[in-house]
């Protein structure tokens, strides 16, 4: 057949997948932002500020990396911010009660994961649309946390525990190492495991994925559990950094986390995106917010800018889809 001869005769050439090209564009954007900020502000290039940006980006990335998997599977998890609040407060209580940071860490990770599993069950088994299920969960968690804390603050944790949030190693904040670790682990999971590939397939077409023999329900529960566990991780780093737990600790982070994932090139319609892209997305968003800060823009502008970015990112993604 003439058609097949074309295939056989095609010369192999350097191939950059669309994902890679997208990430390169975003890296360039991040670089450009750095250059602009370095020019227009005096303090941007100071070591302190750079480390500050990296640390802030890392907190955002923990949350956003778990959320990336959810969005890859074609869903959304709006409960991550509230999950941080509950997990941080539980972890704080356990550390205070037992004096053991290890038990506290387990409590934070455990509660985060449990919340995620509940989300997964609602989405996969009860077939509640993910944005509604996790939105309901947001308020359940929010209420539980406030009720549990009763307006109190828990503070003062062992120095060893505080290291994971505010410590340094070789002059670089510990959370940055953690971020790189989770970046590697998340990328490996998504790109190099069968489960990761199946999650992409589910997001791209859940019906076809089911008819390919992928156990869709189990993978979805796993994805939401991961997202919850990453909220647990974020809660611990937050706790260690702030050295105090309050009910509203992660509340303002949901929208930025969604924004970071969408800036990173993941599609809200599922099946497209990478954990590395989200990493770059978290960097870009942090740079924007940092720049506004350095330029003495009132912090009140932050949710507004983040909201506009979310809508813009989704819109650009939809334009891109319509073209292909």
């Amino acid at each position, binding site marked *: *057949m003439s*058609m*097949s001869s*074309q*295939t*056989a005769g*095609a010369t192999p050439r350097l*191939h950059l*997948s669309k994902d890679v090209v997208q990430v390169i564009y975003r890296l360039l954007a991040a670089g450009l932002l750095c250059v602009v900020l370095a020019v227009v502000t005096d303090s941007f290039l100071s070591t302190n500020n750079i480390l500050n940006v990296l640390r802030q980006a890392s907190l955002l990335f923990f949350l956003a990396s778990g959320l990336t998997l959810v969005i890859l599977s074609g869903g959304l998890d709006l409960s991550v911010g509230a999950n941080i609040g509950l997990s941080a407060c539980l972890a704080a209580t356990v550390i205070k009660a037992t004096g053991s940071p290890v038990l506290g860490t387990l409590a934070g990770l455990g509660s985060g994961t449990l919340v995620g599993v509940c989300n997964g069950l609602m989405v996969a088994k009860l077939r509640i649309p993910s944005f509604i299920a996790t939105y309901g969960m947001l308020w359940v968690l929010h209420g539980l946390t406030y009720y549990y804390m009763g307006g109190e603050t828990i503070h003062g944790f062992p120095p060893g525990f505080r290291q994971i949030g505010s410590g340094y190693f070789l002059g670089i904040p510990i959370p940055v190492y953690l971020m790189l670790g989770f970046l590697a682990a998340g990328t490996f999971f998504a*790109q*190099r*495991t*069968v*489960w*990761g*590939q*199946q999650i*992409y*397939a589910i997001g*791209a*077409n859940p*019906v*076809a*994925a*089911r*008819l*390919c*023999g*992928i*156990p869709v329900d189990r993978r979805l529960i796993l994805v939401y559990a991961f997202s919850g566990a990453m909220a647990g991780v974020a809660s611990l780093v937050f706790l260690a950094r702030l050295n105090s737990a309050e009910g509203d600790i992660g509340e303002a982070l949901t929208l930025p986390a969604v924004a970071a994932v969408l800036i990173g090139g993941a599609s809200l319609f599922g*099946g*497209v995106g990478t954990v590395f892209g989200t990493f770059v997305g978290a960097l870009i968003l942090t740079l924007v917010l940092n720049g506004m800060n350095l330029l003495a823009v009132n912090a009140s502008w932050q949710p507004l800018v983040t909201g506009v970015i979310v809508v813009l990112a989704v819109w650009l993604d939809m334009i891109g*889809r319509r073209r*292909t």
Partner: protein
Amino acid sequence: MRAAVKSPPAPEVVEEKPDLGTPLLELKGISKQFPGVKALDDVSFAIWPGEVHMLLGENGAGKSSLMKCLCGAYQADTGAYFHMGEKVEIRTPTDAKKLGIAVIFQEFSLVPYLDVAQNIFLGREFKSKIPGLLDRRRLYAEAQKVLDRIGLEVDPRTKVHTLGVAQQQMVEIAKALSQDASILVMDEPTAALSDRETERLFAVMRQLQAKGTAIVYISHRMAEVFALGDRITVLRDGKNVGHAVPGETSPDQLVRMMVGRTVDMSYPRNFRAPGDVVLELKDISATTGIADINLVVRAGEIVGLCGLVGSGRTEVARAVFGADAITSGEVRVFGRIKQGGPDVAATEGIALIPESRKTEGLALIRTVSDNLAVAGLPKLFPNHLFSPGRARRSAEALIKRLRIATPSPNQSVGLLSGGNQQKVVIGKWLAAGARLFIFDEPTRGIDVGAKSEIFALIDQLVAEGAAVLMISSEQAEIVHVCDRAYVMRGRRIVGELSRSELSEENIVRMGMHDE
């Protein structure tokens, strides 16, 4: 010396263009192309006032596409419309409505939580004297009139979602009738109706006819064609293959026109003696409505499953694969009882090549390589670690073996042609090591060359000992390719045809209603 005497025109010409004056609506040279298929190819056709014009054809012959062009749901690529001899445009549903065209759809165009009256007059609400409000009294009074006319004894205040299928179909009919259309198009209106409702509908049709309404009627039922039709148009492969008048033709003649002498295209098959039983269904009933299904497929065999669209063929395939729940009976695969969903089916070596490639078979935004790997992931990577290089090599081997025309394994699968997309769907199951293949309309929307390639591939599969169950609406394919075939009607299997009994006429007769 011969010309002067024989002046009257030949009788065939009279039949082609009956002398009934100007047609109410005339379509000339309508073509409609979809990616990979020519749904309508230069179709011309005219309707006169007061006639019932039967539109016949096999599944996929282009009847529905023609209807959708008529009502403005599709825009024809080429061709022209003439209303009472004047050239008109039909580009939107509103254009069609202005010309007095109303359509009774097979898929319901009803809003579930509006009541019967609101549905009948959707988009044509009655305004009250108080500005902005609706005249509900008039709405229900008018709706009651229409319902009385078709004899539907339902309160016009009933919400449509509480009605049964037959009643919903009647509401759909009422909606079209209420438009006082001069041209009424009906797509198998009686498919869901009982005898009583059907008779009532026919009575209404006769009234309309007397008033001069033109009716285009699509049906699969021969009895209706002869009882109601004034003229018959037969479509095949998107082409108008002929007109007929009921008094001058017979059901057999029409069946032959519909089936046609298909383009001389033979699919090479090497028939062999079948091996062990691979798939056995015993008295299967499922939530989707299929009942008492018994069938057997052996290794080395291609078994056809035919019948009209909606006769339950796809539902059988999905029940075997575990995509829909079975309520009774047992499925045996390779001798063992199979339970569980599609994930179990896939690990047991069953492959489903679904009817709708784009929505159920492929992730269109992902690459050829991704799609080829997706079903075989657990088999290709038993230690759960995915290797892009290995997936790529596996994909390249499959691309070569199946001769998939793609510039690279990294091409988005959505950019391939229909035939190549279908090869990708088959390829993913080869990667998964499937031994029982269920093909649901494997050649829909695929060009002729790719069709024979796909059949060669299926033949190769059975030669290697796989078992194949194949659903197809194209009788010619079943006849050429299958060892034997089951025929379905009304969600049951109504007969089995052995190789020697397999003929298009037999399939159509068994699968059609009546007789």
